[in-house]
C-alpha cells in the first residue's frame, strides 16, 4: 500500500511539471510527423519517379529508348535544349544511333542535381539500364543492316518478356517500416528513453537533494517500498506514453499495430521496466543534476541510434547489428519489427521478453544496490 502511495505521489509530481507534456506528447508527435514525412516514400517500389530526357540525337533509336522508359511509375519529360538539364536527367548524346548500329560504344549519362532523392536516382538508373538492355536485345534480334532497316523491321518484331519477376512481402502482414509505420514505433522508443531517463533520474536526485527521500524513509515506509514505488511510478509513466503514442499512431496516422496487442503491451512493459531501473541506477550514482542531464542525453541518443530507432537497422554493418543487441533498444525494436511488420504473435517475441526481463533484473539490482536515501 505504501509502495502504491509513493508511486502515486511520484506520478503526481511528474505530471505537475509543465515540461512533462512536451516530452510525453508534443515532441514525440512533432518527431513522428516530421520523420514520417521524411521517410514516407522509402521502401515502396511504386512511388512515382520523375525522369527528364535530353534527346540530343533525335533519332528513331533514341525515340524507341524513350518509349521504353515510359511506364506508370516513371514520369518522363523530353527536352531538346542543353540548358534544360535539371533535377534528374538522362542525356542521350548526339550520334547515339549511328554509333550503336556501327557497333561502337556510346555512353548514356544520367545526371542528378545534388540534394535530390538518392533512392529515386538509383531507381531511375536501374530503369534506364533495363530499357537499354531491351533495346540491345531488340537490335540483336532484328540484326539490322542499317538504322532504317531497324526502323522498318522493329514493328514486326515479336519481343516479349518470358521470365517475369513477381514480388511479395514475407511474413503475415503486408507492410514495410516506411513513413509513419516506422516513425511511430521508433519515436515511441526514443521518447520513452528521454522521459524515463530524464524524469526518473532527475526527480530522484532532486528528492535526495531536498531531503524528501529522507523524510519518506523516516515514515513507516520501508526501503523496498520506496524503491518499488519509485520504480512502479516510472513504469506507469512509460506505459502511459506508449499507450498514448501507439493510439495516436493508429487513429491519427493510420498505422497497423500488429495482430497481437497483448504482446505489444507486454514487450513495451518490460522495456519500460528496464529503462525505469536504469534511470534510478544512474540517478543514484551521478551526483550533479547538470552532469546527469548531459549523461542522459548522450545515453538516450546512443541507445536509440545503436538500437535502430534513428535509421533502419538493415543499413548498418553486420557487426553493428550484433552491437545493437547489447542494448534494450535493439531488443524492443526487433520485437516491434516482428509484431508490427511481420505480423507475428506473442510466441515470436518470447526471447525478446526474456532478454528484457534479464535487463530489468540487472538494472533493478544495480538501482537497489546503489540507491541512496541521503545526499
Amino acid at each position: 500500500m505504501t509502495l502504491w502511495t509513493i508511486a502515486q505521489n511520484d506520478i503526481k509530481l511528474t505530471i505537475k511539471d509543465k515540461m512533462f507534456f512536451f516530452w510525453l506528447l508534443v515532441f514525440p508527435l512533432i518527431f513522428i510527423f516530421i520523420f514520417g514525412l521524411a521517410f514516407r516514400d522509402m521502401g515502396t517500389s511504386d512511388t512515382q519517379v520523375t525522369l527528364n530526357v535530353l534527346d540530343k540525337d533525335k533519332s528513331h533509336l533514341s525515340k524507341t529508348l524513350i518509349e521504353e522508359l515510359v511506364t506508370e511509375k516513371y514520369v518522363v519529360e523530353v527536352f531538346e535544349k542543353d540548358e534544360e538539364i535539371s533535377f534528374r536527367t538522362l542525356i542521350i548524346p548526339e550520334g547515339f544511333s549511328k554509333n550503336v548500329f556501327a557497333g561502337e560504344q556510346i555512353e548514356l549519362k544520367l545526371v542528378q542535381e545534388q540534394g535530390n532523392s538518392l533512392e529515386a536516382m538509383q531507381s531511375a538508373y536501374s530503369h534506364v539500364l533495363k530499357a537499354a538492355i531491351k533495346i540491345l536485345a531488340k537490335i540483336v534480334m532484328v540484326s539490322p543492316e542499317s538504322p532504317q532497316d531497324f526502323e522498318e523491321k522493329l514493328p514486326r518484331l515479336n519481343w516479349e518478356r518470358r521470365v517475369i519477376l513477381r514480388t511479395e512481402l514475407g511474413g503475415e502482414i503486408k507492410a514495410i517500416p516506411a513513413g509513419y509505420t516506422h516513425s511511430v514505433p521508433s519515436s515511441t522508443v526514443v521518447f520513452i528513453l528521454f522521459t524515463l531517463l530524464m524524469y526518473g533520474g532527475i526527480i530522484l536526485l532532486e528528492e535526495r537533494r531536498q531531503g524528501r527521500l529522507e523524510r519518506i524513509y523516516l515514515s513507516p515506509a520501508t526501503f523496498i517500498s520506496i524503491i518499488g514505488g519509485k520504480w512502479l511510478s516510472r513504469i506507469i509513466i512509460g506505459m502511459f506514453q506508449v499507450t498514448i503514442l501507439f493510439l495516436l499512431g493508429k487513429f491519427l496516422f493510420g498505422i497497423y499495430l500488429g495482430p497481437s496487442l497483448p504482446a505489444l503491451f507486454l514487450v513495451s512493459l518490460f522495456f519500460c521496466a528496464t529503462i525505469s531501473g536504469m534511470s534510478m541506477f544512474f540517478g543514484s550514482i551521478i551526483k550533479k543534476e547538470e552532469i546527469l542531464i548531459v549523461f542522459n542525453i548522450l545515453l538516450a541518443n546512443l541507445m536509440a541510434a545503436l538500437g535502430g530507432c534513428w535509421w533502419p537497422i538493415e543499413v548498418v554493418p553486420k557487426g553493428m547489428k550484433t552491437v545493437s543487441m547489447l542494448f534494450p533498444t535493439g531488443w524492443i525494436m526487433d520485437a516491434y519489427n516482428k509484431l508490427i511488420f511481420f505480423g507475428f504473435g506473442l510466441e515470436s517475441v518470447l526471447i525478446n521478453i526474456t532478454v528484457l526481463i534479464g535487463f530489468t533484473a540487472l538494472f533493478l539490482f544495480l538501482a537497489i544496490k546503489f540507491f541512496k536515501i541521503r545526499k
Partner: protein
Amino acid sequence: MRHIPILVKKDFKRKWKNPVVIIGFMLIPLVFTFIFGIVFGGQDEETLPRITLLTVDNDKSLISNFLSTAMSQGELKKMIELKPLETEEEGRQLLNKGKASGLLLIPKNFGNDILDGKKAEVLLLKNPSEQFLPLIAEEITDTTTLILSSLLSVFSEEVDTIRGFIEMNNLPDIDISVLSVKVKNRFESISKYVFPPVISLKQETITEEGKEGTESITVHSYVLPAMAIMFLMFICNVVFSDILIEKETKTLLRLNVSRMSMTEFIWSKIVTSALIGMLCTFCLIGLGIGMFSIYWGNLFSVFLIVFCLNILIAGFIAFLYSFIKTELQAGAVLSSAILIMSLLGGSMMPVDNFPSFIQQISKLTLNYWGLEAFKMAMMNESFGQLLPILFGMVLAGILLSFISSYFIQKNLKKGLLK
C-alpha cells in the same frame, strides 16, 4: 560599456572552474559523428552492407542454375550474397527471423516452361522489416530475369532445337554439329553489339548548372557541423541560464547597486556566450580534423563562419530569454525551441529528405544557414557566395541581441526585488 570585459572575465572564470557541462555538450557531437561514421561509413567507403538473398531452386535445371549464377557474378557478387537452400519452408523460416533481405523461389518446371515457349515466373519474397535492401535485391533480380528473357529471345531458334533434342532419345551427331555452328554464328553476329555492350550508362551528380561535383561531403563532415550547431545552442543556454541564477541568488541585485548598468550585464552574457561558443566551435573543428580528417575548406572562411554563427546563436538564445522569467520556464522553452529548430534545420537529418513545404520552414532556422555556410566552405565555394549568408547571420544576431537586451532588461528590473 567599460564593465563588460570585467563581467566577461568573471563569467569565463566561473565556467573554467566548472566546465563539465560544456565539455559534455561538446562531447555529444563527437560521439555522434563517430557512430554515424561507423554506421554509414566514412570517406568513400560503401554505405550499404552486402544484401543476403536466400534462393530455393525447385527446378534445378540448366536455366534456373543460370539465373542464380548470373546474380553472383562480377560486381553483383560484391553487393549480394546468395544463400542456396533446399526447401521453401527453410527459406521462409530464415526470412521470418530477419536473416535475409529476400527469398527467391524458382518454381518446378521453370526451365521446361521456358523451353516450351511459355512465360515463366519467379517469386521474390521481401523482408517486410527492411526498407532499402529488399528494393535493391528486387532491382538486381529483375534485371537478371530481363537479361535471361533477352537471351532466350535472341537464341529462341537454338532453344527450340535444344528442346527438340531433349525430346529425342537418340541425338544425331550431325544435328549437334549444326546447332554448334548456328550458336557460333549467332554469337559472332551479336558480338558487335554485346561484347562489350555498345550502350553504357554513367551516373553523375551536378552541384549547380552544368558543374560537376568535385568535393564530396562525407558522413563525418555532414554530421559534425550539424550536431555541433545544435549543441552550441545548448552551450550558449548554459551561459545564459546564469542570468536567472544570478537573479534568484540576488547576485544581480548586488551588481545593480554597483556602477554597472543592467545593459552592460546583459551584453556581457551575450558576449560571453558568443565567445565560449566560438571557442567550443574551434575545438570541435580541430577535433574533427584530428579524429575524422574532415576537410573544412578555406581557413579564413571557416573562421568567419564560426564568428558569425556564434553571434547569431548568442542573439537567438538571448532573444528566447526575453520571454523567460524563471528557470523552470527556461528548461521548458529553451530545450523545446532548440530541439524543434534543430529537427527542422537539418541537424538531425538532411533537409533534402523533407517535403518541400517543410524545406521552406527549414530556411527560417539558424541550423540551416549554419550548415549551408559550412557546406559551402567545404565545397570550396567562392567567398562572394558565402558573404551574403555571413552578413545575414551577423545582422540577425545583432538585431536579436538588441531586441533581447531591451526585453530582458525590462523583465529583470521587474523581478529584481521579488
